[in-house]
């Protein structure tokens, strides 16, 4: 942080970056190649496609699933649930966390619930969610809201409690009102913690949606993985798992891009 200027002063020549990126890409490709080679070897060695399908068999499974439109439908179903639940959870979690941070009353009032529910994974609520909200979208979305809300609220609250008192004091003696201190000092200072909470919540949302879809759904990647088991279509399970990984990767990149364009001056560490 302190050496930003010094770092700029010793900036390497422009093409150094380029060759570094090329190197990076080469190592990345090598890593993928190794994984595929190992996978191919293991599949050949085991020799039972129902136990361990080869990369080629998995690829043909993917082509099959994409051709029938099933994979796209499942991806959209899972993504929609995550995005809706995550958005609602964040929209409730941020104000709740801010309130818990600034008001000792609300913090102490909420504390027993936060400490209690924090240790109950959303999966534990799947059956209850189905009983209460049925097999439709609501039950899945409620579970994602639940998992997101706590993570975002707790991180936001910790952030508010960690704002340096001198920042508030400085604003107060510069003429800011208490309301202005909240909006112009506390909220900007807490943004990195909010993003941290959102990142963890996004990971949890993936876990939640998949487990909920396995138990109670007619669509989604979790459903695809669980349902393929019935027909011993192991390659479809592989397609589902790889798709999940890619979805997570894309979501993380999207979040990073969003943060680095919208919030680049808020010291957010990704």
């Amino acid at each position, binding site marked *: *942080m302190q050496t*930003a200027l010094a770092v*700029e002063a010793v900036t390497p020549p422009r093409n150094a970056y380029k060759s570094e990126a090329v190197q990076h890409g080469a190592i990345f490709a090598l890593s993928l190649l190794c994984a595929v080679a190992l996978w191919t070897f293991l599949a050949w060695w085991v020799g039972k496609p129902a136990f361990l399908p080869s990369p080629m068999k998995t690829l043909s499974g993917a082509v099959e699933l994409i051709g029938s439109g099933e994979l796209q439908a499942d991806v959209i179903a899972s993504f929609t649930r995550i995005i809706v639940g995550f958005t609602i959870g964040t929209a409730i979690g941020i104000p709740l966390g801010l309130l818990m941070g600034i008001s000792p009353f609300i913090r102490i009032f909420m504390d027993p619930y936060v400490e209690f529910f924090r240790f109950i994974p959303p999966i534990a609520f799947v059956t209850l969610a189905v009983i209460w909200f049925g097999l439709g979208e609501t039950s899945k979305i409620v579970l994602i809201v639940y998992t997101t809300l706590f993570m975002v609220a707790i991180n936001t609250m910790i952030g508010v409690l960690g704002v340096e008192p001198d*920042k508030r004091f*400085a604003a107060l*003696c*510069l003429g800011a009102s208490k309301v202005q201190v909240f909006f112009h000092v506390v909220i900007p200072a807490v943004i990195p913690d909010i993003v941290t909470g959102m990142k963890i919540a996004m990971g949890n949302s993936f876990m939640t949606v998949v487990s909920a879809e396995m138990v109670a759904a007619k669509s989604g990647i979790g459903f695809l993985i669980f349902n393929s088991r019935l027909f011993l279509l192991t390659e479809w399970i592989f397609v589902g798992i790889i798709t999940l990984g890619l979805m997570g990767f894309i979501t993380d990149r999207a979040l990073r891009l969003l943060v680095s364009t919208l919030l680049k001056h808020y010291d957010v560490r990704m």
Partner: protein
Amino acid sequence: MEPAVQSADVEVRGVCCEFLKRAGPDRGRYYLALDNVNFSISPGEFLCLLGPSGCGKSTVLRMIAGFLRPTSGDILVRGKAVRAPGIDRAVVFQGDAALFNWLTTEENIGFGLRMRNVPEAERRRIVAENIRLVGLEGFEHYYPNQLSGGMRQRVQIARVLANDPAILLMDEPFGALDAQTRGIMQMELSRVWSSRKKTVLFITHDIDESLLLGDRVAIMTAGPAATIKKVLHIPLARPREIGPELLGLRQEIKDAIEEEVMKSMRQVDHANSSGS
């Protein structure tokens, strides 16, 4: 006609400060940090508050700023009791936690004006003027973490000057800077102060710094129950240099501080030996 009564800008009268220790081996016990502190600062005067570390200098400043309440005693700013922070008293903090790291130099300096709804054009003018005053031209659009430590302290100084407060409260503003930068910043502050003539309370533990900057130097005793030991006048024109004419005063301050440091070390020894 009667001569106009020159009332003090800041008056600290019989201030005591007691804390309830919330951590450590003395948890739950009261600690008397300040005991009957008295001093005043006249309008336009530069007062240095000098004392061994941990004696409660910052506590005094924070009470004048309105961040803390004294346990007993009064703090008057221009005749009125201090109840809360106010724009008549601006604080330059130790270190740079008080800067808004999501705002540029320009935005940090304009923060107070924006909060007070000063019109845009006027705000720009004042910000530009203060950027020039502290020599930060060219760094208007830099963020605090892209600036050096000395520059960040300049941003803090410009930020409070932009608000045009009557009283500047500076809490070891150059304490974290290297010796060379500190020397430059002291000269710059002296120059800025000469052109703006604010009432200043400047906290430091650096004897030479207090000699270079202060009209008067108030020396504090070591805590607990710290108070003002003595106040010395420094009747020299600025810009100053540590030269022969300051050596006598310097020795006097040094002796006073050393006495306090020795006293506090003896107290620690005593506490340790009686504790075991």
